[in-house]
């Protein structure tokens, strides 16, 4: 408890309230908040679209290479974010064939919000996949058989039985993914850089301000990030408890 509370309290005591209030309203802080929210929520949405089918495949189907796919999904969790960022930078950069192809088709992902989203997605999607997969696996297989024997197609069974029953796991995965995306720094700064008002997320803004001696601005963003995360997590968790419990 102390381990968590003391560092947070230290943030509040490092500067005056008046100074903080002044920083909260500054355009650079607001822009970093908006970029962080926009990108992290996009990542949650994309994770749902891409992660749930992968979780379903891993939990319900048997196929060749399943173990490899499962390990690949886990890999970004154990990979240092800077390594992930570097890998993405190489892949999406003009020196790789894939990056060249994208640029030729007018898609430039580096140093843009799209780049931030890709970097955040890369490091945070495994949380949603793992949580959803565990939720699918914990569902009694007889329920699936019952739905099929009652005439449901596989898609309807998935929509009417699996999804509602895996809701808790999916919500947990969403929270973890969102929190990870919001706090992402290493991969994001490698792929998108630190362009103020364009690619400067909250974490990047904290780093930039702290390094350039703008401690009050760094603290203001850090506190905003903290309050924001805490409130959203609290609301989300209580909603999940009400709906699932």
């Amino acid at each position: 408890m102390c381990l968590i509370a003391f560092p947070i309290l230290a943030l509040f005591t490092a500067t005056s309230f008046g100074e903080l209030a002044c920083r909260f309203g500054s355009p650079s802080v607001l822009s970093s908040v908006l970029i962080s929210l926009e990108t992290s929520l996009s990542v949650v949405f994309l994770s749902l679209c891409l992660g749930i089918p992968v979780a379903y495949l891993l939990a319900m189907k048997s196929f060749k290479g399943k173990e490899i796919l499962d390990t690949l999904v886990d890999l970004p969790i154990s990979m240092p974010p800077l390594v992930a960022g570097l890998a993405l930078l190489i892949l999406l950069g003009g020196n790789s064939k894939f990056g060249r192809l994208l640029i030729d088709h007018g898609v430039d992902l580096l140093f843009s919000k799209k780049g931030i989203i890709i970097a955040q997605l890369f490091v945070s999607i495994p949380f949603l996949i793992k949580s959803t997969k565990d939720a699918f696996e914990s569902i009694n297989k007889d329920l699936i058989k019952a739905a099929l024997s009652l005439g449901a197609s596989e898609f309807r069974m998935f929509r009417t039985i699996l999804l509602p029953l895996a809701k808790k796991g999916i919500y947990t995965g969403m929270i973890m993914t969102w929190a990870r995306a919001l706090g992402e720094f290493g991969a994001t700064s490698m792929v998108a850089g630190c362009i103020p008002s364009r690619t400067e997320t909250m974490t990047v803004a904290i780093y930039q301000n702290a390094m350039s001696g703008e401690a009050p601005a760094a603290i203001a963003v850090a506190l905003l990030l903290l309050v924001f995360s805490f409130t959203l997590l609290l609301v989300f968790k209580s909603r999940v408890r009400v709906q699932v419990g």
Partner: protein
Amino acid sequence: MLLGPSGGGKTTALSIMAGLVKQDRGSVFIGSRDVSDLPPGKRKIGFVFQDHALFPHLNVFENIAYGLRQRKIKRQEIIRKVDSCLKGLGMAKEKDKFPHQLSGGQKQRVALARALVLEPEALLMDEPMCSLDTMTKEIVRDQLKRIQRKTGVTTVYVTHDQEEAACLGDRVSVLNKGQVDQTDSPFGLFHHPRTRFVARFVGTNNILRVGVTSLKQQEAIVHVRHERIKRVFPIRVRRYPLFDKRKEIDLCIHPGSILLKKKNGVVDDRLNRIEGSITHIRSNLHVVSVNIDAKGLALQATVPRNRFSFHIGEEIWACFAMDAPHPLCGRSCREDEPLRKCGKMPPISVWRDDYEC
């Protein structure tokens, strides 16, 4: 009725019938309809699962309506059908409850209603009563029998419980390692098992290895092949599989056909008898089950409780009538004479537990 021990292939057989597992070979027919390649929903079957498999996030009404919704039936029709089904099962008041708010018996009825509301051509039930307590089991069993009679739906019921099989089944098949060992009426199965496996599974552990000494028209004289029992006795062979002189066979005697007599008591001369002592007594509500050690040969007898007056260690005669022993050679005792002919017996050393002659 599919009866067999765990791992015998009962649930797999049922899943193949339902289309939930694809068969390696062969075909599945429901009536005259080949459903081998149809998905489960198109087979017109109802499936009741071991743990009921009620959808926990749907209430009773929605659980029963689930199958009807998949068939795109009109809303009013769904309401009418589900309500009538719930009324028939005495569950009308519970229609808004969720599965976790129901008792075991109620869950069972909802699972049954969910399967029957689709008016299936075949109802498949996978040990549906294994999680119920004895009292609820009896109530549900009666209800199930009544519903089955009323609807007339062909029902395949999987169980490992012999009592359930005897109470509910018209025809019982015993499954052993994926193979049907015997299909018979419950009485035929319990009193005339055809193989060692079936005999043991239905609780008839009295198996005597005998050699045929002589044969008359309806009678065979056999001698017990046991190093410490030197007894010769006649058995009736009129309805049983035919066998040759000098052949070795296994005879099975139903525990209920063994009569216990005190060693110093009077024994009817027409009865065969083996001497032994009582080693274990186990009594239940109506009968007493007695284990007997007949010079190394284990026998079992069930005696009505009101006629039981023995104690452990007492020397007794285990008596049985001429027509009590039944040969275990894989042949039915009711088949035509040519079909009752026993095959070649293997040498004693290669006999397996479940070998059919």
